[in-house]
């Protein structure tokens, strides 16, 4: 007899649709969870990285002689010591493990030191003599393509055009705008760390905080010149990720030092180095023109957007494709013209961050929708509802949206929520807070709305799959299951979801999540809101194989049922390089926000009073975790709206610390009211829809819309700073 999941759900507690405790929660509240920075090995040494102080320079010499003489130094390595391919990258292999002849961004690694103590390593690093011929950096994304070529193929990483419908249709009402998005940092709280342990056969084990074990492994192996099986990765505790760990940081560096010295090597970045050590969200400049008829129906959208990839490509090609294909937002538009450009500059490299291209476009198209509403004398919600996409709508790529797209419903849900009580008389609750800058005079409260769209899972024909192994045996007289994948838990709660799926599928309550490592097949990246979908799908599929062998038995004696399977979502297609047409995406996710802000219009201080959200999640496998993602994603959107930006000047980062790069505190982040819709996607396991990214997209424009309403200012750039509001 084969039990169906529905029958099994009631059989054990902690299955899907419930919110059981995280298996790592106990360790985390006790301070016993081992983050990568906590790793320790007998006899280990410490690695450190010498980085370029210049955004763009020719390296004329590197002299390590004096550094090698420092007592306690085991090795000083440069590009000459990279035995394999000294180039890596997620999409283009364009980034050196250690710089050769030229540095293209401030912070680019040039040399490594391995020493008996972190301070010894620092002392030795200061004795490495690098001479540079400093060059004029390319820093303007709009002119970069015609500027000094930084790579052999020039400075265009990717151009994504989309041509749909008429390219020259006209409209009764036209609004245009130029928008800018600053460079946001993932600012995960646990800085990059890893421990590389060499083996006597020339192979290496790396314990690392990452988002994608297998692609790390493949890039490391190529750089080390080793077969992939001689590079073994195990996930250690990850202190947040948000896209910032999808690229390599010190992975190859630690392994190089370990293999060179024969000693275990630990590397830990401090916060400043972390800012130089990972990619950021692409800053962007976006030009938009929206045309509509007098009823508010969109006739056309035309946009030209630039995304600054910085010195190396990272995931820029996919970010550009997202910005382009999602560039009109969750709206029906028949006539679309998009030209999205991802470019190289000498700014810090940019790649994945939660929202991945959809955030930049989202700020611009939602700002445009507000502008359109104003031009038409319509309410911001009405103009959005008038154009809201539904199931069956056609994307600018020609792709038909073939599952729920409740855009109007989400907007109405947030619109109908009760508003917070009027402006407080308690100064702690006013803009400026205990700085006592106002007792209410000059404070204006307004409301803003926004809605966003995000593709879920990997797109454009990528073979996106995950591998799961489920093993069942008897423990103390009852069935017990273990689940093994290489899919990275970075805090989001995949470990809980996997347990829940096994419980539901097999009716076995006791489920152990085995450490994530490369002894099993690829789990794919923890990004694109995809792990519950794809690795969840793989675990579900492995359970189905186990269930067949279990055949309803509750006692299998000494037998061990052990099944491993790969699972992939339905295929996507590349988009046409000229027209941008094609079924590029697997699934779309939607969220809407309503923001209420108090603005001290005299001082330019903003307090977000309420930030309410409605999101369709298809099916909430773990309602508590789903809401947690919406809360955290909304907070990051708030950060981009009013405070977060890596500020650069001539390619140099001016604020690489948490003193100067501000992320929202508990006082900045208001209480949230959240509505979760569960409109099942028939194509996805359990009907789920990826959750992590959509709330990051609509949060930012909703807040900015409210500030605009309070001030009457155009506010075309995020983050909005006090000086933008006061004109000083």
């Amino acid at each position: 007899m084969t039990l169906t999941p529905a029958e099994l759900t009631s059989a054990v507690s902690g299955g899907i649709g419930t919110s059981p405790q995280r298996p790592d929660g106990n360790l985390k509240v006790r301070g016993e969870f081992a983050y990568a920075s906590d790793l320790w090995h007998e006899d280990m040494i410490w690695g450190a990285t010498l980085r370029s102080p210049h955004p763009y320079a020719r390296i004329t010499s590197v002299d390590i002689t004096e550094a090698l003489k420092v007592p306690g130094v085991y090795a000083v390595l440069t590009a000459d010591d990279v035995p394999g391919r000294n180039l890596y990258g997620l999409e283009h292999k364009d980034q050196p493990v250690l710089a050769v002849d030229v540095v293209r961004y401030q912070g680019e690694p040039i040399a490594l030191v391995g020493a008996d103590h972190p301070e010894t390593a620092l002392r030795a690093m200061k004795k490495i003599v690098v001479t540079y011929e400093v060059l004029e950096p390319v820093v303007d994304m709009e002119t970069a393509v015609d500027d000094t070529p930084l790579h052999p193929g020039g400075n265009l990483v990717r151009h994504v055009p989309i041509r749909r419908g008429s390219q020259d249709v006209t409209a009764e009402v036209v609004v245009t705008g130029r928008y800018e998005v600053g460079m946001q940092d993932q600012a995960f709280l646990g800085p990059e760390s890893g421990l590389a342990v060499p083996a006597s056969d020339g192979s290496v084990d790396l314990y690392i905080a990452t988002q994608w074990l297998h692609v790390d492994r493949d890039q490391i192996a190529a750089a080390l010149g080793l077969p992939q099986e001689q590079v073994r990765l195990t996930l250690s505790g990850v202190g947040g990720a948000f896209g910032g760990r999808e690229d390599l940081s010190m992975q190859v560096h630690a392994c190089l030092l370990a293999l060179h010295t024969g000693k275990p090597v630990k590397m830990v970045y401090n916060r400043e180095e972390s800012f130089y050590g990972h990619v950021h969200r692409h800053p962007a400049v976006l030009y938009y023109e929206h045309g509509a008829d007098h009823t508010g129906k969109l006739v056309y959208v035309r946009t030209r957007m630039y995304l600054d990839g910085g010195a190396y490509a990272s995931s820029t090609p996919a970010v550009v494709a997202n910005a382009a294909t999602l560039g009109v937002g969750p709206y029906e538009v028949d006539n679309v013209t998009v030209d999205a450009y991802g470019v190289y500059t000498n700014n810090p490299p940019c790649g994945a961050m939660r929202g991945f291209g959809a955030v930049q476009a989202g700020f611009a198209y939602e700002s445009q929708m507000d502008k359109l509403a104003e031009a038409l004398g319509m309410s911001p919600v009405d103009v959005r509802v008038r154009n809201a996409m539904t199931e069956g709508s056609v994307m600018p790529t020609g792709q038909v949206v073939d599952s729920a797209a409740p855009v109007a419903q989400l907007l109405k849900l947030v619109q109908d929520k009760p508003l917070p009580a009027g402006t407080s008389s308690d100064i702690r609750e006013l803009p400026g807070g205990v700085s006592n800058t106002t007792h209410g005079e000059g404070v204006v409260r307004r409301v803003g709305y926004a809605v966003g769209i995000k593709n879920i899972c990997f797109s454009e024909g990528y073979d996106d799959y995950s591998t799961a192994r489920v093993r069942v045996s008897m423990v103390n007289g009852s069935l017990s299951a273990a689940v093994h994948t290489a899919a990275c838990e970075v805090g989001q709660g995949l470990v809980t979801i996997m347990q829940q799926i096994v419980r539901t599928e097999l009716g076995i309550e006791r489920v152990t999540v085995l450490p994530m490592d490369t002894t099993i097949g690829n789990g794919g990246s923890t990004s694109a809101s995809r792990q519950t979908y794809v690795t969840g799908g793989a675990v579900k599929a492995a359970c189905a194989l186990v269930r067949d062998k279990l055949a309803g038995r509750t006692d299998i004696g000494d037998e061990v049922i052990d099944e491993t399977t790969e699972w992939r979502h339905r295929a996507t297609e590349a988009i046409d390089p000229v027209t941008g047409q094609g079924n590029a995406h697997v699934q779309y996710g939607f969220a809407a926000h309503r923001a209420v802000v108090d603005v001290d219009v005299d001082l330019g201080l903003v307090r977000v009073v309420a930030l309410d959200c409605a999101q369709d999640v298809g099916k909430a496998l773990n309602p508590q975790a789903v809401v947690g993602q919406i809360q955290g994603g909304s907070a990051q959107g708030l950060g981009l709206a009013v405070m977060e930006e890596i500020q650069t000047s001539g390619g140099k980062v001016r604020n690489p610390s948490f003193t100067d790069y501000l992320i929202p505190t508990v006082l900045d982040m208001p209480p949230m009211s959240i509505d979760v819709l569960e409109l099942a996607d028939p194509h996805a396991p359990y009907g789920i829809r990826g959750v992590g990214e959509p709330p990051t997209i609509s949060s930012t424009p909703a807040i900015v819309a409210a500030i605009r309403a309070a001030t009457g200012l155009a506010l075309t750039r995020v983050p909005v700073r006090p000086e933008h509001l006061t004109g000083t």
Partner: protein
Amino acid sequence: MHISVNVDGVTYADEVEPRLLLVHYLRERLGKTGTVVGCDTGNCGACTVHLDGHSVKSCQMFAVQANGHEITTIEGLARDGKLHPVQEAFRTNHALQCGFCTPGMIMQAIDLLADEPDPDDETVRKGLEGNLCRCTGYQNIVRAVQDAAQRMKPGAGPKIEQHSDEHVTAKQPVGGE
């Protein structure tokens, strides 16, 4: 310099460099890696511990400044294998995701509850403003602290859980897992 410091109920006598930060002393000398480093600059609060029962950011203190004092870290809170009510509240209210801020948040929350045993939302927020969380948007953290306050109310649970801030500082080696 010579220091004598009681950490989680155990007294340690050590020679330390005057410039050694307390957090590095805890992590690297004593192996108390439950106290983590998030920013180095006193902004994030992940390294928060108690000094004589009051919260301090251990990256903003030298180890020598702890000489003669009692330090309680996240690892010294559980009693006889039982979680402190604030730990329990963080666990059950989904007040953590990656968990990196959690040790500092919990230590700060305990200090806050010692001053304000029944805090409203705004008081909790004000009390935690020096601790950053990047995952949760703080919603469940605020909820957890208020839940913990209920758990810690007189008569709300077994006597062992009725800590005031003062009692949280361990006087004896901490027992059991």
